[in-house]
C-alpha cells in the first residue's frame, strides 16, 4: 500500500466549487450555464475514476494539508472507502445533470441558476466529505453540505418548503454540533482525529466512559443525515424539494454522507475490536434494525409517492448501518455493497417519480392507477428498481442483502437477520400494489383515461435516459456484481479495516 501526494483529490473536490462562479455569471444564457455544470461533472467523474483505479492498485492519495492550528488540519486523503463514496456520488451527479435539465426545463421552473449553482456547491461538499482524511475535515465538509443544500430544499419558496428547510437546517446543524463535540472528545482522548484503518488504537478503549460518549455524539451527529430513528424527521419533509434534489442529494449524497461518517467512525476511528469491547456496536445495531422496520411500516401509510420513497430510504439506510454496527467482515462487506446498490436503485425510483410529475403532474400513489399505459418504459424501470429494493434476484439489492444476511447469521445474530427479512416483506407490501395498479388497474377506465388525457406515450429523453441508465447499472450490478469496482473496493475496505 503506497501513499502518494497528489493534487487530484483537490481537483475532484474543487471542480464544481470553481464552477459555481461561471454558473452564476451565465444566468442569461441557460445552455452555457448547463454546459458549465456538465463540464464540472465530467471533470469530477474523470478525476474520481483515475483515483479509483489507483486505489484499486493499492495507492492512497493525499493532498498536502492546511493547518489552522497545530493539530487541527484539513486533509484530503483518498482511500478505498472514500473512493467508493466518491465514485457513486460523481457518477450519479453526471446522470442527474442531464435529468435536472430535463426536469427544470420540463416544468419551466424559476430560479434555475440558483439551483444549478447550489447543486454544484453541494457536490463539492459531498466529495469533500468522501475525501476527508480526518474528523475535522469531515466536519467542515459536512456543515458546508448542509448550507449548500439549504437553497435547494427551499427552492420552491412556498410556506411548506420554508418550513421543511428550517427543519432540515435545524436537525443537520444540531447534528453537526454533536459531531463537533464528539471530535473534540476524540482529540482530547487520543491526540489525533485522523482516520486510521482499524481504529486509532488503545487510547480510546482506555477511557471507556468518554469513548462511549464520543461514539454516541459522533454517531448521533452523523446519524441525523443518515436518517437513523429518531433523527430521521427531516427527510420526509425535505421531499418538498424538486425531485432531482430528492434523488441525488436526499437519496444518495446527503444521506450517504451521514452513513459514510458513521462508517468512518466505526472502521477508522474506533475499529471493530473497540466497538465490541466498548459494547457500543449492539445498541447501534438494534437501533438500526428498529429503524429498518419502523420506517418500512411508515411507508405503507403514505399517500404521496415521494414521501413513501423517503421512508423507504430511511429504512434502506439502516440496512447499511446495521451491517456496520455488527462489525464483522461479512456484515461490513454486505453494508458497503448496499451503500452503492441502494444508491442506484433509489435514484432510479426518485427519477421515475419526478418524471411522472413532469409528464402528468401526478404526485400521489392513488393517482398512479393505470399509468403504465402512458409511461410503460418508466414504470417498467420503476418495477425493476423496486424489485431490487425488495431483494429480488438479478437486481443489485439481492446481492448486497444476501451478503448482509450471510454475515448476520455467521455472526450469530439470527434476530437481526430475521428483522432484515421482515423489512423486505414490508417493502414488497409497499411497492407491489403500486406496480400492479400501474400496469393492471382494477378498472379498465383507469388505463384508458391516460390515453384520453395525453396524446403521447413515454417521456422526454432527458428524463428517461437517466432512469434507464441507473436501472441498467442496478441490473448489471445484480447479475455480475464482481465485475463492478464497488465490489472490489468493498473487499479492500473489509481487508484493511478489520
Amino acid at each position, binding site marked *: 500500500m503506497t501513499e502518494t501526494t497528489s493534487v487530484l483529490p483537490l481537483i475532484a473536490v474543487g471542480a464544481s466549487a470553481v464552477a459555481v462562479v461561471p454558473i452564476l455569471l451565465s444566468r442569461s444564457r441557460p445552455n452555457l450555464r448547463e454546459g458549465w455544470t456538465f463540464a464540472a461533472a465530467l471533470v469530477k467523474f474523470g478525476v474520481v475514476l483515475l483515483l479509483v483505479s489507483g486505489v484499486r492498485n493499492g495507492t492512497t492519495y493525499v493532498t498536502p494539508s492546511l493547518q489552522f492550528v497545530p493539530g487541527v488540519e484539513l486533509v484530503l486523503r483518498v482511500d478505498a472507502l472514500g473512493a467508493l463514496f466518491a465514485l457513486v456520488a460523481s457518477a450519479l451527479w453526471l446522470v442527474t445533470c442531464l435529468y435536472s435539465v430535463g426536469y427544470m426545463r420540463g416544468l419551466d421552473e424559476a430560479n434555475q441558476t440558483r439551483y444549478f449553482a447550489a447543486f454544484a456547491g453541494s457536490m463539492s461538499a459531498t466529495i469533500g466529505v468522501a475525501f476527508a482524511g480526518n474528523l475535522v475535515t469531515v466536519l467542515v465538509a459536512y456543515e458546508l453540505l448542509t448550507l449548500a443544500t439549504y437553497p435547494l430544499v427551499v427552492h420552491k419558496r412556498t410556506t411548506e418548503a420554508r418550513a421543511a428547510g428550517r427543519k432540515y437546517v435545524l436537525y443537520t446543524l444540531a447534528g453537526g454540533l454533536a459531531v463537533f463535540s464528539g471530535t473534540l472528545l476524540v482529540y482530547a482522548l487520543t491526540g489525533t482525529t485522523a482516520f486510521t484503518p482499524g481504529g486509532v488504537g488503545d487510547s480510546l478503549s482506555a477511557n471507556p466512559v468518554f469513548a462511549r460518549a464520543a461514539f454516541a455524539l459522533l454517531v448521533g451527529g452523523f446519524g441525523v443525515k443518515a436518517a437513523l430513528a429518531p433523527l430521521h424527521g427531516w427527510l420526509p419533509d425535505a421531499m418538498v424539494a424538486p425531485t432531482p434534489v430528492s434523488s441525488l442529494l436526499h437519496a444518495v449524497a446527503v444521506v450517504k454522507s451521514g452513513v459514510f461518517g458513521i462508517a468512518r467512525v466505526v472502521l477508522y476511528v474506533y475499529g471493530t475490536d473497540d466497538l465490541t469491547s466498548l459494547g457500543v456496536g449492539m445498541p447501534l445495531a438494534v437501533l438500526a434494525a428498529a429503524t429498518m422496520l419502523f420506517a418500512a411500516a411508515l411507508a405503507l401509510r403514505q399517500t404521496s409517492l415521494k414521501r413513501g420513497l423517503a421512508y423507504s430510504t430511511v429504512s434502506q439506510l439502516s440496512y447499511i448501518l446495521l451491517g456496520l454496527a455488527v462489525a464483522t467482515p461479512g456484515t461490513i462487506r454486505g453494508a458497503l455493497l448496499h451503500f452503492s446498490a441502494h444508491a442506484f436503485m433509489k435514484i432510479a425510483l426518485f427519477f421515475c417519480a419526478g418524471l411522472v410529475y413532469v409528464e402528468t403532474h401526478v404526485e400521489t400513489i392513488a393517482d398512479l392507477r393505470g399509468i403504465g399505459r402512458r409511461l410503460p418504459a418508466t414504470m417498467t424501470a420503476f418495477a425493476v428498481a423496486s424489485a431490487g429494493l425488495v431483494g429480488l434476484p438479478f437486481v443489485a439489492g439481492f446481492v448486497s442483502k444476501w451478503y448482509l444476511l450471510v454475515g448476520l447469521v455467521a455472526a450469530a445474530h439470527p434476530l437481526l437477520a430475521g428483522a432484515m*427479512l421482515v423489512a423486505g416483506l414490508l417493502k414488497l407490501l409497499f411497492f407491489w400494489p403500486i406496480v400492479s395498479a400501474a400496469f393492471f388497474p382494477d378498472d379498465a377506465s383507469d388505463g384508458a383515461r391516460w390515453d384520453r388525457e395525453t396524446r403521447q406515450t413515454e417521456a422526454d429523453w432527458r428524463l428517461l435516459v437517466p432512469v434507464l441508465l441507473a436501472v441498467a447499472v442496478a441490473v448489471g450490478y445484480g447479475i455480475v456484481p464482481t465485475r463492478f469496482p464497488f465490489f472490489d473496493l468493498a473487499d479492500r475496505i473489509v481487508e484493511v479495516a478489520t
Partner: protein
Amino acid sequence: MTALLPTALPPAVVLFALAVITDRLPRRLGHVLAVLVSLSLAAWLLTVPAGLHLRTTLFGFEVVLFAVDIYSRLLGVTLAFVATVGVGYTFAVGDDRRQTALALAYVGAGLGVAFAGDWLSLVVFWELMAVCATVFVWYRTSDRRSGVRYAIYHELGALALIAGVVTHYVAVGTFLFGDGVTPGLPALLVALGIGLNACFLGLHVWLVDTYPRTHVATSVVLAAVTTKVGVYTIVRAFPDGQPALAYVGGGMVLFGVTLAVLQSDMRRLLSYHIVSQVGYMVAGFGVGGALADAGAMAHLVNNVLYKSLLFMVAGVVIVRSGEESLKDVGGLARTMPKTAVVFAVAVFSIAGLPGFNGFISKGMVIDGVENAGFQALWWMLVLGGVGTVLSFAKFGYYAFLHGDPSGDYDDLRPTELAVLGSVASLCVVLGVAPSLLFDLLPASGVAAAKPFSPTQFLKAGAVTVTGLVVFAATYARLGTIRPVPDLDSVYHPLGRRLATAATAGAVAIDAAIDAVGRTFALAAYRLLNGRAGGEPTSSSIGFGVLALAVTFVVLLALFFVL
C-alpha cells in the same frame, strides 16, 4: 451430436429467449415456433448427459447452473412438455401472444430451479419463478388483489427458504448440494419455504385463492409448475426422506379431497385436488426409499399430464358456457361429447383406474409407503383415493350428465382437440406401457415396483367401488352443499389486523418523535432570536451560503499557493 451445444446453456435461458421472441412475432408463427422449440427442448433434455454442468461463480459464490441427474432430467422434460401444452392451449382458446410469453417465462424460471445444482441458484430461480407467476396471474385475473396476496404468500415462503439456506451455508460453508439440508433450524426453515410452494397443509391457501380466479389458460400452466417444482425440491433438501413430511403429505391428501368434494366452483375443486395429489408426492418423498421416491416422481409426471388435462377441460367448459360453477352447467355430454371423453380419460387417470397412468404411480407410492412401514399413512392415502373418486364423480355427474345443457355449445375445435387429445393419449399410453416412464426413473425403485400385480387391481377396484357407492348415496346432497371456509378466513383478517396495528404503532411513534423535535426546534429559535422567537430568513441564509462558498474558494486558492 450431443457434444457441443447441450451443456453450454441453462435450459431456462432457452425459454426466456423464446418468451421474448413469442411476444414479438405474429401470433400464429410465434405459437408454432414456441411449440416446436419446447418440444425440441424436451428432446434435448432427454438426451443431455448426466452430470454437473456449468459450474461457475454467481455473486462471488460457487454454483452449478445445469445439474443433470434422474430427478432434474425428468422434471425438466416434464416442464418442457408443460410449455408445449401451455402454448398450444393458449393458442387454441384464442389468447394473445403476451399471455403465451408470460407462460413461457414462468416455465423457464421453473426450469432454472429444476436444474440448479446448488442452493443459491435454486433460490434465485425460485424467486424469479414467483415474480413471473405474479405477473402472469396479474395479466389476466378477475381479482388483482388475489394476485397481490399471491405475491405476499410467495415472498413469505421465499424468506423462509432464504433463511434456511443461509443458515445451512453458515453451517457447512458451501451452497452446493450435499447430503441435504443441515438438520435442525435450517431444515425446518427450508421445509417451510418448500412447503409454501408445495402447498403443505396450512400453507396451501394461496393456491385455492388465486388459481380459480385467473384466466383459464393461466390456471392450466400454473397448476403444472410451482407445486411440482416445490415437491421436487424435497429430494434436494431431504434425500433420505423425512417422516414428518410424510405425514404432512397424508394430511394434504385427506384435506384436499375433503374440501374438494364440498366445492361447486369447478376450478376450485380442481385446485383442492392439486393439494391432494401433491400430498401423494410429498408422502412418497417423505417416506424415502427407492420405491416411494420413484413412485412420487412418476406421480409428479403423471399428475402434470392429467391435472393439466382437467384444467383444460374445465377451461373449455368455462369459455363456452361462461359459467364457473357446477351449479350453473349440466348435461354437457350431449352437446360436447369429445370433451366428455377427454374428461373421462383424465378422471380415470386421477382416480387411478387400470389402463391409465395414475394407476401405475399411485400404486407405486402406496406400495412404497407400505414397504417403509407407515401403516397409518397407507390408510390415509387409500382413503384419499376414495375421496378422489367421490369428488370427480360429482364433477362428472353435475357437469356432463345431470340436467339439460344451458346452450348449444360447440365441442372441441380442431386445435383444442389436438392439444387435449395428445395429452389424453399420453395418459393412456403411460398407463398401458409404463416401461416408457420407468426407463427414466431410478432403476432400484422401478425394480421394486409391481405395476400390474393382482393386489393393485384389487385396491383400485375397491377404492373405485367404495367411492361410487358413497356418491350414489350422497349425490343429491353433494349438489347443494356449500363449501366450508378455509384457513384464509383466519389468515387474511389476522394479516390485515397485524398490518394495521403495526403501521398505526409506527405512526404513533413517529408523531411522538416529531413532537419532541418541534419542542427542541422552538427552544432553538428562542435561543437564536432572543425575544419572541422567529425563523432565520431565507435571504440571510442565502447570503450565508454565498459567503461560505466564497470562503471555501479562497481556502482552495490558498492550497494552491501553499
